[in-house]
């Protein structure tokens, strides 16, 4: 057999082996499975309400006055792209106020952390439940238990260029959470901690 034919056939064998092993392992692994046909990067609500809301939490009631103006570094190309998600946003001051609101203690406001487990364990917004937008099967039921009955569901991730909170919002919307109840905290964990707000840590016990 000519050398080039041999090389081509070897490449084909290795390629098929890669396909078989890749998909088999993907199916068998416990966590981190990628669903081949699922678009993980869909943005925007599935069922938007007729009237679009303002970006700065106009429906946040008494928290409206606490809205902070955007900082210089937040007005970047990434940030403007970040806002093309179609969900309502909540600002830092509004969120801090919401956290101390009696309705939160009554379980009417739910916070969802869309970051990885280890980051969540290191610290998260008090009371936040974790759900990974890329592995919702493992957590969506827990979140829905409280989110479906909540007035406001605030979703956040790392902040900056992180888009996982957007994808989590879409997942929750697809699972039945009302568009009007979903809020994105785009400042995310980095802004929350930078401002010295309270955090909750999962102890190693």
């Amino acid at each position, binding site marked *: 057999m000519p*050398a080039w034919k*041999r*090389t*081509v*056939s*070897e*490449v*084909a*064998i*290795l*390629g098929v*082996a*890669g*396909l078989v*092993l*890749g*998909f088999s*392992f*993907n199916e068998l692994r416990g966590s*981190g499975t*990628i*669903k*081949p*046909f*699922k*678009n*993980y*990067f*869909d943005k925007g609500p599935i069922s938007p309400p007729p009237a679009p809301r303002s970006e700065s939490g106009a429906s946040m009631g008494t928290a409206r006055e606490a809205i902070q103006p955007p900082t210089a570094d937040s007005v970047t*190309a990434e940030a403007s792209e970040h806002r093309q998600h179609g969900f309502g946003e909540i600002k830092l001051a509004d969120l801090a106020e919401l956290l101390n609101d009696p309705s939160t203690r009554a379980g009417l406001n739910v916070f969802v952390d869309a970051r990885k487990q280890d980051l969540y364990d290191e610290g998260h917004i008090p009371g936040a439940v974790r759900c990974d937008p*890329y*592995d919702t099967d493992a957590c969506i039921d827990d979140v829905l238990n409280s989110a479906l009955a909540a007035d406001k569901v605030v979703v956040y991730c790392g902040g900056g260029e992180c888009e996982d909170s957007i994808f989590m919002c879409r997942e929750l919307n697809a699972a039945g959470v009302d568009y009007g109840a979903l809020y994105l905290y785009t400042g995310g964990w980095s802004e929350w901690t930078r401002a010295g707000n309270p955090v909750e840590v999962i102890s190693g016990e």
Partner: protein
Amino acid sequence: MRLAEERSVIRKLDQNGLALLVVRVLLGGYFVYMGVSKVRDPVEFLKLIRLYEMMPESPAVFMNASAIVVPWLEIIAGSALVLGLFAGGAAATIATMLTVFTPAIFLRALAIRASEGTGFFDIAFDCGCGSGVVIIWKKLLENALLLLAAILLMLSRSRRFCLDRVLDGRRTRSTYCRACGYGLCDGVDGVCATCRDSAQVAAGAAEPAG
């Protein structure tokens, strides 16, 4: 004359096989390591693939399949190269992957340079290569060297220290020369034409003396 000498040096390297063994182990081991680091967190790899904007987000199957298969292709090709099993094909597979990845990294670096105004030599990002955030010009240089090594292995016909040689010997006994392990033999006596000619010349030279 000089060219012939140089070719002779390359051929000796090829025939000796030790240098190729070292290159094979290093290149193959590197790809196994990179593949394993991606397999650990395929979702993160998927997110990084997306940033290259090389594939459509919808239908998602192409991007998702890449995140599922590419790490395993790296592990399999790397392992095959280390073992010397399908060595030519493994080197060609790795060379193909590097030929796709390297221009993609370069183009993304250029896009970042254009959008952020960062100097090219200051650009650093997680290229999805399995090694986290890296200085891009260094990564490109590294990939060029890896590609060179993969092409060298792909073109080499030596199968010394390769499982291929053992398997070929069992299967056909005629693929590679049993004398030099380099040339393709014609099945007559298990040696290549070059070795046979050399043996005949040596025999011819020995006759008058005898």
